[in-house]
């Protein structure tokens, strides 16, 4: 088990390094002159040169990469060009919106998807199953920002149960903050829940076809007992991967939703950074999001080993 853990850890480190190199190359080397890019076309060469000096862009690329990478390890994300404050501060503040939102959406998504997917598999080909499959087909097809607009139309404008956007801050109260995140979380959760329900159903049906299910029935277990005690646990394994992927997507995919609801989260931050050409902010947030994805993959791999005893011995 230890060697499995260590090998995955090494894999994680290598992925991070590779990702950081790619980010560095794409954002600092490919656009040609990052300073020129940041200032736009109509600036004087002197201004550009001044910025290059300020950002240390005249040093060789390899050196700049190492400075940046080492800085990352120390939590040094640089200073935002537009806001003139340390990026780490900006990220810290935004994280308090994006992370809870992602967790909220993931929780909703899982709470809906699991019972729905299991029910559909247990009642395969029945009217229930067909209805659920139809509903999930629809859910998968709905763009989350359009759904958000419809939610706002229904619950904010018409019913006035929720505000149409904005985030009052956690200082205003835990439930106040949660309420502000509810419509966004639902908008995010619906398509994800649809995907997850279908994956759950398909994984469960595959598992129910395995030979050991037949062995269980031959012992006298009812269909329901077989499903709960044998099929479900083994069917969860592929579902875990999807949940991991979904978490990463929610963190990064909320970029549009945060725009719709004017939430001061990471998505909004990086989007503004892109439109304002603040490469420092963009570099850091992208690196952070990639780190989150790689970390979640690592955690999912570890969970596999817990659930599936065959993975515990790697020799």
């Amino acid at each position, binding site marked *: 088990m*230890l*060697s499995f853990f*260590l090998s995955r850890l090494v894999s994680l480190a290598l992925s991070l390094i590779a990702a950081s190199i790619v980010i560095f190359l794409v954002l600092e080397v490919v656009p040609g002159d990052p300073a020129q890019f940041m200032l736009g076309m109509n600036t004087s060469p002197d201004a550009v040169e001044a910025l290059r000096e300020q950002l240390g862009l005249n040093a060789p690329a390899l050196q700049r990469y190492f400075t940046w990478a080492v800085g990352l390890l120390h939590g040094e994300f640089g200073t935002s060009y537009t806001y003139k404050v340390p990026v780490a501060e900006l990220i810290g503040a935004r994280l308090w919106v994006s992370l809870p939102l992602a967790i909220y959406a993931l929780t909703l998504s899982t709470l809906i998807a699991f019972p729905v997917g299991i029910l559909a598999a247990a009642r395969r080909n029945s009217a229930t199953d067909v209805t659920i499959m139809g509903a999930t087909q629809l859910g998968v097809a709905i763009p989350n920002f359009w759904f958000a607009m419809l939610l706002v139309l229904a619950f904010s404008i018409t019913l006035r149960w929720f505000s149409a956007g904005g985030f009052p801050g956690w200082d205003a109260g835990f439930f106040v903050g949660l309420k502000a995140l509810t419509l966004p979380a639902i908008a995010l959760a619906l398509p994800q829940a649809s995907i997850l329900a279908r994956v759950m159903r398909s994984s469960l049906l595959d598992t129910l076809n*395995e*030979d*050991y299910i*037949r*062995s*269980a*029935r*031959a*012992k*006298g*277990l*009812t*269909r329901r*007992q077989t499903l709960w*005690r*044998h099929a479900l*646990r*083994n069917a969860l394994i592929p579902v875990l991967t999807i949940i991991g992927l979904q978490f990463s997507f929610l963190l990064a995919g909320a970029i549009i939703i945060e725009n719709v609801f004017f939430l001061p989260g990471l998505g909004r931050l990086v989007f503004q950074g892109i439109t304002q050409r603040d490469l420092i902010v963009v570099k850091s947030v992208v690196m952070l999001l990639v780190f989150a994805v790689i970390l979640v993959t690592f955690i999912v791999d570890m969970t596999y080993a817990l*659930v*599936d*005893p*065959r993975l515990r011995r*790697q*020799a």
Partner: protein
Amino acid sequence: MTLLVARKLSLAIGSFEILKDVDLSVDKGEILGVIGESGSGKSMTALSIMQLLPSSARASGSITLDGVELLNKPEAEMCGIRGKDVGMVFQEPMTALNPTRTIGDQVAETVMVHRRVGRPEAMRIARETLNRVELPEARFPLDRYPHELSGGQRQRVVIAMAIALRPRLLIADEPTTALDVTTQAQILKLLKRLVDEDGMGMIFITHDLAVVADLADRIGIMKLGEVVEAGPTLEVFRKTAHPYTRALFAASSHIPKRLPPPAVGASDVPVLAIENVVREYKLPRASLFGPPKAFRAVNDVSLVVNRGENVGLVGESGCGKSTLARAIMALEPTQSGAIRLDGEAIDTGASFAARRKMQVVFQDPYGSFNPRHRVDRLVSEPFHLLGNEAPSGAERDRRIAEALEHVGLKATDAEKYIHEFSGGQRQRIAIARALIINPALIILDEAVSALDVSIRAQILDLLAELSDRLKLSYLFISHDLHVVRAITDRVLVMKSGQIVESGPTEEVFRNPQHAYTRELLAATPNLETALAGRTGG
């Protein structure tokens, strides 16, 4: 009263009739052997007794267990019977157990489903049952996982799950078909002992006449959903009233007629010469700091096949025969030693000229062909080895037709797709493919193992005839001793990567020198011996 009686059992799935008026019965302490080839309905009969049929199945007739009607019993009551009164063992031990639960858990589950006992008591019974099936505590504690056990050991766990509550009836559906011959012998002995100890009835389903001749008190022979003959074992085998029984019997013990191999001249180059071949695989590191280990699949093997000779290579799974075969086919590298085909060296970089002396027939008639190609394209694939000399146009068609006719098919079959042919016909096409460039050596890698007994006899006849007529040499790789005995002149026995015995086939079989060869022969079920044993007792 008889333990289990099936009367006029008929089964239909959709518009297909699977079983027609099946009559079978088993008594307490009695073993009923049900024999049939694929499509005979034998497994469906077992599933009917357990009422584990697909939902689209419609059954009629009667199945009674100690007088109680099972057919169309409500599912809830059936659940009470399965595992407690009737146990079942299936064919594939590798997938019959849940990989994420311990063996103790899975055996104890049978107990907890039917009896109101706590977990400690259930585990105690599980331990006892695992001991009964010869999995002692020292090596097989209750917290072992299935992936830590071999096929034979897993099958023992499956048997334990089935008999934990000492059911009145045990149904075993081809329980040893997927196991090695030596393991099979052990499992059969175990089953017999359990039947004697518990006084339960057993229905043993198989396609192997020899196995059932030794094990069963009474047998029923099934063909296409019907029981064509039934009765006490000895009587059925001696009388063979039904033509199908006679055909089955003849096919099981069939030995094709063959000419003796040509004499080997002093200067003759052997068709295949293998000298001290070693094939090793590097294993992943067991621990982070230890040295990397290697596994020797083939350990210093030498063998020779002379022109016109048929040589057999026997061994159980994992002995290395398949690896050796792949090395001869130039598909895998060797770490040392030499392989020569008609004098030319063979390794993974071998030229077309060298490779064209050899072709292969594989085991699985359904996996041997690209489902998207027509037969003519499939059969002519080896022409690739002829490079620029490959025939085209009319000449190509002629050679394809010739190859198909050699194997008993028609030239017009070249235009069909492979899915239009049965298993036996596909193996013929595979042989045609192997013949088409007139190789000196054909490697037959378990080429008849996946075929029904009656088809197998026909294919062996074909192979023998081709070998005589076209002066082909075969390297016949198999785990099935009967088949090897029927078609080879010399045989080599392989175990753990090494050749432990070799010699003329008849001599090795009649007078085995090595302990392993003796073990193999003793474990192999033999129809005549079994029947002879019956008259005695």
